[in-house]
């Protein structure tokens, strides 16, 4: 069952994270073309090699429907496979395995996976406050008949912060809670960012005290345990063995994946503190035929510190309920015994909307390809990548291994 590992990430591009206020404004189609061109150049491939596309559909600026066709037309591509992914922060991981599966099925030979996350220019008649309006309810639907519009929003249950905070509170009641361990996740990741000139917080060291003294947003989450939204955008090229052989980078083969979801609000989860990454990771490891201990680096989706902790436990790296102690006992930096989010994670790299999760995929690729600069791990052939959307609503796992 599953993938044979015959498709690999061979090229990548991502915009350096920037503040929305100062980042260039570009149409999403323009960003897609620009990112695709950069990723192709990175791979050493030609536009004519691309015959598949997986693109982020929700919030696409120039179209709400028919996004792949419009993008193919704009780019000048002829595609044998195209689709839209709508899995929030899990989308990056989800795009890569869909691309790999399409290639192994023989549908296509090279797939562009792309998420534009810079703002588009305002139309001459457009009111600049549209963004504030659009952000008022965040990722929540206010449509008539949407369960969350009817049963969550009137009580003030909205935004991601409070959902993750309530998961953390439930965890605390069941297993105990150590704010220092949670802060250490952010601090170790910051150490990694200090070795990544592209990270938003490059050159800005962080201490556990800084995290614990930062503003409480929703108990028990401090503001420095929460990602900072930035403008960005990212693309990767996934290619068949034949095409990968012509690429200039060492490929990161997709040897395993898993995906799991069953709710939007974690209130309706069977058990709020046993997250969907559990079944997703089990499937990914079984498919790749490797053990947790074979993993040399973990790029764990980190919208919040609690996301990291639960993923480490539920993906099977740490026994359930022992995550806090484990984090204190291990060095999660690129120099450490469990290198994790070696680019700084989104907490220190910045979260560029839905493309934020691509930073984890791209870091895994760069580590495997030996292109991670100062933070390059000595041996890095096998990397675990996770993606998380919503409030632990949809999660995915990838196993990437060097060709």
């Amino acid at each position, binding site marked *: 069952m599953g993938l044979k590992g015959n498709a690999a990430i061979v090229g990548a591009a991502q915009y350096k994270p920037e503040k929305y206020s100062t980042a260039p404004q570009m149409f999403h189609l323009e960003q897609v073309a620009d990112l695709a061109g950069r990723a192709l150049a990175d791979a050493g491939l030609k536009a004519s090699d691309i015959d598949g596309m997986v693109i982020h559909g929700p919030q696409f600026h120039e179209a709400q429907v028919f996004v792949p066709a419009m993008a193919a037309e704009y780019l000048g591509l002829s595609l044998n496979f195209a689709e839209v992914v709508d899995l929030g922060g899990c989308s990056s991981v989800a795009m890569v395995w869909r691309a790999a599966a399409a290639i192994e099925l023989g549908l296509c030979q090279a797939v562009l996976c792309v998420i534009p996350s810079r703002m588009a220019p305002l139309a001459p008649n457009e009111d600049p406050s549209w963004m504030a309006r659009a952000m008022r309810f965040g990722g929540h639907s206010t449509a008539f008949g949407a369960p969350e519009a*009817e049963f969550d*929003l009137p009580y*003030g249950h909205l935004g991601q912060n*409070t959902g993750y905070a309530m*998961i953390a*509170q439930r965890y605390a009641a069941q297993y105990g809670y150590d704010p220092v361990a949670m802060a250490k996740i952010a601090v170790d990741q910051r150490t990694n960012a200090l070795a990544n000139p592209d990270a938003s917080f490059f050159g800005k060291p962080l201490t556990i005290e800084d995290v614990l003294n930062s503003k409480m947003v929703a*108990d028990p989450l401090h503001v420095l345990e929460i990602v900072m939204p930035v403008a960005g955008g990212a693309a990767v090229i996934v290619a068949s063995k034949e095409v990968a052989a012509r690429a200039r980078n060492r490929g990161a083969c997709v040897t395993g994946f898993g995906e799991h979801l069953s709710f939007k609000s974690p209130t309706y989860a069977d058990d709020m503190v046993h997250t969907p990454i559990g079944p997703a990771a089990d499937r990914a490891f079984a498919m790749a035929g490797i053990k947790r201990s074979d993993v040399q680096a973990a790029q764990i989706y980190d919208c919040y510190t609690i996301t990291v902790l639960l993923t480490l436990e539920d993906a099977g790296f740490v026994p359930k309920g022992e995550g806090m102690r484990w984090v204190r006992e291990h060095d999660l930096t690129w120099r450490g015994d469990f290198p994790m989010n070696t680019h700084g994670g989104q907490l220190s790299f910045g979260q560029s909307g839905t493309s934020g999760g691509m930073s984890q995929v791209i870091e895994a690729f760069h580590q495997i390809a030996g292109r991670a600069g100062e933070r390059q791990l000595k041996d890095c052939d096998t990397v675990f990548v996770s993606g998380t959307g919503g409030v632990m609503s949809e999660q995915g796992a990838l196993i990437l291994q060097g060709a």
Partner: protein
Amino acid sequence: MSTNKPMPMPTAISAPFWDGLKEGRLTIPHCKSCGHWIFFPRRHCDKCWSQDLEWKEVKGAGTLYTYTLTRVPTLPDFADEMPQKLAVVELDEGVRINTTLVGMDESEIKVGMRVKPVFDTAHSDGTVLLRFTAADNDFPAHIDSTPAALAAASAAQADAAAAAVSKRQVRFDDEAAMKALVSDTYSDWSNQIVVDQELINEFAQLSGDDYWIHTDPERARAQSPFGGTIAHGALVQVLQSRLRVALDFEVVGFNNMVNYGSDRLRFPAPVPAGSRIHARTRVKAVEKLPKGMQMTLEIVTHVVGNERPSVINDLVILYM
């Protein structure tokens, strides 16, 4: 009058739930095929997919599954509930419900504690929201959190507080005593009043400022960054006359008191229609002039719960 807080829009599927709450009854769908309880309401059982469901009344007894206290409001409109006590309650029937806790101090809240329902009339249209409180709490099962009811309660409180304050008398021409009133500390909060759409409309008519962001709720819901209409800054400014601040002093001995206008007038934060506002003051400066004694009174009006003032007014009063 309305509020800008999001309110439920019952559907043909869910209406019995909301109708039940209005009657003080908690009813949820129950599957006649497999016995599973279903929340939120649907036409099918999410366990066995049977459509053979019935609405059944339950006691509402449950346990607190989890909660959080917000230190930043999840929407500006919830500032008056800070900290919001967002909670997930698991009813004894097994279903979980997103809700908020009421009538409880932060320190009393514990995951796993027993809770009971509180039926809260949250909107003047009669919408009742289902909140919860500790099972052993001596708290009413029915409350009214419409802005009008809360403002009325605050007025009674403020009046009682004002009656309890003993006012020192300060002669207007006693320069030292007058200057001693200058303080960095604000007074207690005044009573609260509701700035509703009706009031905003009346002010629009009076002033001629009928810009849509104040007067067109439908357009404002679609296009305003505040999710609805907001009051005119000038309206909120003049409403300071309706806000009674209990001061612990009284200036006496003068023949005439003149409102000289304002040294500084700012509208830093919007007042969404339906908000409650309140004010507090401090004496910012006292200066002896040839004509008399001039006092600058800083009056700040806030939407209840919002740290940012909606009006800052440095009111200049001349006592002669």
